[in-house]
């Protein structure tokens, strides 16, 4: 797969320059090195801040979800690499409106260490921080070790639901609580069909045969649960739903949102082919589907493949999920 870029070293900075040039009404860059993206109009004092951060190459994740009813700021690393603790601290500072800041991001070693360190840095400045980690990828560890799982597309639900709670004026404890509830209630699984190319590496991250797929692969190409011949769409969807529903069984009457997400190259046409089975399986389980999301919500640049995410809606999660939000890539309400 080929890429359109200039000097690979500038890939992220040029992406961000283009983003703020195209969407000045949504985004503004902050920090010494311009690696913090925040809302163009910062919220009023007293709103709980929500920051995220992580490697680049996943648009709209992470920084694309900065917006009303969503995030306040994001720290932006190089492609597939954690931002630095300094950049994360800057993001926290921008997001702080005096009511504390929730750090809401995916469970990856480098990101966790850096966000913890960023917390130490801003601690001196009297900014109260809480943390919620997404670890929704069922393929990356058994249920007994859920806390070791990678964070993937489930974070979009967490951004949306926690973002709505913060926008509604809830305090840091309440925002953190509903974010944690969302993280607890999300399960994802991915299947990759092709690699992508990290600009500075210049060649595909992994090799995969022309007729192969890998079930459970991570969004950076981390190993999955099996690699085998490419299967028919319905069989892929059935297995992915099996894995999700085994991990988080649904009962009749449950309300659930589901995301059918392209990792990048896989077209909308194929997401809709898969959605038929997804819907059938959820209905067979007696669940009601709320606001299904079909599209490119969390990508790995030009990787071909899909992920499914289930988000079981409890308490007022549904109200928060369907509340208005607005960023350059997603609008609700």
């Amino acid at each position, binding site marked *: 797969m080929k890429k359109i870029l200039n000097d690979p070293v500038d890939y992220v900075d040029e992406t961000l320059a283009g983003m703020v040039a195209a969407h000045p009404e949504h985004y503004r860059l902050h920090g010494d090195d311009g690696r913090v993206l925040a809302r163009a109009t910062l919220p009023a004092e007293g709103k709980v801040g929500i920051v995220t951060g992580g490697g680049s190459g996943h648009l709209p994740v992470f920084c694309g979800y900065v917006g009303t009813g969503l995030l306040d700021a994001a720290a932006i690393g190089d492609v597939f690499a954690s931002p630095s603790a300094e950049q994360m601290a800057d993001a926290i500072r921008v997001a702080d409106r005096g009511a504390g800041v929730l750090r809401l991001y995916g469970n990856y070693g480098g990101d966790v*260490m850096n966000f913890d360190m960023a917390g130490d840095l801003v601690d001196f400045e009297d900014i109260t921080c809480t943390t919620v980690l997404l670890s929704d990828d069922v393929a990356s560890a058994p249920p007994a070790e859920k806390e070791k799982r990678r964070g993937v597309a489930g974070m979009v639900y967490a951004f949306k639901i926690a973002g709505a709670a913060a926008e509604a004026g809830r305090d840091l404890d309440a925002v953190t609580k509903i974010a944690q509830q969302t993280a607890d209630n999300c399960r994802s699984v991915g299947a990759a069909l092709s690699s992508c190319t990290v600009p500075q590496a210049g060649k595909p991250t992994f090799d995969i045969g022309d007729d192969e797929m890998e079930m459970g692969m991570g969004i950076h190409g981390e*190993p999955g649960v099996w690699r085998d011949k490419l299967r028919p769409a319905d069989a892929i969807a059935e297995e992915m739903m099996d894995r999700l529903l085994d991990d988080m069984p649904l009962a009749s009457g449950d309300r659930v949102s589901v995301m059918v997400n392209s990792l990048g190259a896989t077209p909308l046409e194929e997401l809709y082919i898969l959605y038929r089975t997804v819907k059938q399986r959820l209905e067979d389980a007696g669940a009601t589907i709320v606001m299904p999301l079909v599209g490119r919500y969390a990508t790995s640049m030009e990787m071909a493949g899909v992920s499914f995410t289930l988000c079981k809606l409890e308490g007022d999660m549904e109200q928060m999920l369907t509340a208005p939000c607005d960023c350059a890539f997603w609008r609700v309400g």
Partner: protein
Amino acid sequence: MIDRAAMVAAIDRLTSAMERDFEELNRADGALGDGDLGVTMTRGMRAISDKAADLPEDLGAALLACAQAFTKSSGSSYGTLMATGLMAIAKDVKGRTEVDPAETSRLTGLARDAMMARGKADLGGKTVLDSLDAVAQATQGESDPDALADSAVKAAEDAMDRMRDKPATIGRARIFAEKSKGMDDPGMLAMTRIIKALANRD
């Protein structure tokens, strides 16, 4: 006695050692990880070098500035752990302009403990922590600079030998635990090179 001048000289040695080992560390990390460890270390040392002329006499403040420079240069696991270790030492020596070589063991132990807390990892996991622990143990009670240097280098090298055939348990390489047996952990390799450069034993 270790003072600002000794620190600046050590920074110089370390910076050249890391430039020299750039490819080797990338390759070691690339075997099972993402191959960026050489990048992390050269970038980090360059960032510290750039600040060297402006470092204050207060060794705590100087080390804090080094940690921050390192932190800014990359978000990699190793860079963050290194900065964490430096910050722990900085906190301890804050306000002092000299450190006795006899404090090596204690300060190394402080760094090790802070890094364990940061990375939520235990000893014995075939990581940089095992290198630091070995050095802290081996240098205990030692105050002669030459003997200190020799025993620190030997400890780091022995730790690598001891761990080589164990499986990786942490970081990206954990996923390939079986395959990692017989391979050196890149973080341990880097720490061995760091200690050699600090000890002037290259």
